[in-house]
């Protein structure tokens, strides 16, 4: 490779940073909103401190929003851990498709990469098509960047929530928007459309069922695992039709 070529090629960090810009926006708004909510609804002193600590310890939008709820209502630790299990199972299943990607990284690198698996980080890691060694560095930079945006967003949001009068009604729609945006991008690829449909339908079915069985408030909190189980069952049953399409990618 000639010298002038290397200086023009974007570095792995540069690529990771460029890819993470949408996440910066998403985590910035989501984290900011979560921080504001923590300050406004949490009823705790020093929301910025707890916002920073919690967002650093667990990177998860749902958990962060739920954290606001737990702090506010002093939910029993057992219930808290049950929800943590439900929310993180999704991330652990992401880990399945990242096994190959993280293979060969050093222990603490793998440790951090695993800790940082989130929807957005995962989506970008899966979309990356660099060769293995570079891909690992890409994922590490990406995880660190996304983590940083998140912690920054939540902390700044908590400060802002304390200092400014915020119209808190409706700002949490940022989370919904973010998921819809990710979904839209995934559905540009035809192969993803059927799994998306399966996931969506499973969720609707399970939510409706749970609403009938245990009422709306708990239905929403409890719908995640049943939906995922139903989706997996359906996906496995159509595996013969669907798998050839996925392996051609």
């Amino acid at each position: 490779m000639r010298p002038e070529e290397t200086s023009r090629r974007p570095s792995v960090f540069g690529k990771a940073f460029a890819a993470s810009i949408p996440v910066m926006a998403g985590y910035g708004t989501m984290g900011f909103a979560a921080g504001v909510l923590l300050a406004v609804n949490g009823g705790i002193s020093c929301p910025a401190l707890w916002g920073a600590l919690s967002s650093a310890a667990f990177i998860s939008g749902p958990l962060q929003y739920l954290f606001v709820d737990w702090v506010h209502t002093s939910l029993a630790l057992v219930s808290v851990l049950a929800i943590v299990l439900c929310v993180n199972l999704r991330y652990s299943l992401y880990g399945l498709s990242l096994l190959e990607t993280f293979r060969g990284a050093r222990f603490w690198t793998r440790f951090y990469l695993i800790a940082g698996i989130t929807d957005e980080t995962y989506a970008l890691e899966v979309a990356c098509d660099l060769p293995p060694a570079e891909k690992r560095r890409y994922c590490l930079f990406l995880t660190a960047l996304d983590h940083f945006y998140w912690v920054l967003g939540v902390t700044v949001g908590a400060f802002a929530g304390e200092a400014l009068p915020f119209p808190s009604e409706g700002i949490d729609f940022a989370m919904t928007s973010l998921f819809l945006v990710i979904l839209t991008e995934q559905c540009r690829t035809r192969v993803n459309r059927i799994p998306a449909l399966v996931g969506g339908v499973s969720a609707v079915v399970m939510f409706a069922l749970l609403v009938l069985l245990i009422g709306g408030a708990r239905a929403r909190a409890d719908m995640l695992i049943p939906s995922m189980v139903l989706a997996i069952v359906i996906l496995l049953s159509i595996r013969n039709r669907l798998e050839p399409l996925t392996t051609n990618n």
Partner: protein
Amino acid sequence: MLVIILAVGVLSWLIRALPFLLFGRGERPPKAVTYIGRVLSPAAIAMLSVYCYAGYVNARPPLEHLAMLAEFAAGAVTVVLQWRWRNPPLSIAVGTILYMVLVRFF
């Protein structure tokens, strides 16, 4: 509160690490596992989107469910913007602001 944060943090890491602990030694996971890993992510994102809307279903008094105009309109606008212009900050910002405005009326 520190207890909650630590417990949630540790547990989150453990659960996320499960596949690596189970399959990390170099053996290949069974093909079914690989297939699910590939196919689960769009399903999960779709499920999460429904999960968000489920929250809005709860937030409204019972008879107003069909009139979730604000949520569906803002959601539709978000999707259309993203499909057409591929600009996540734009899609998210417009969708959220639209929702915040609409929800005052609907």
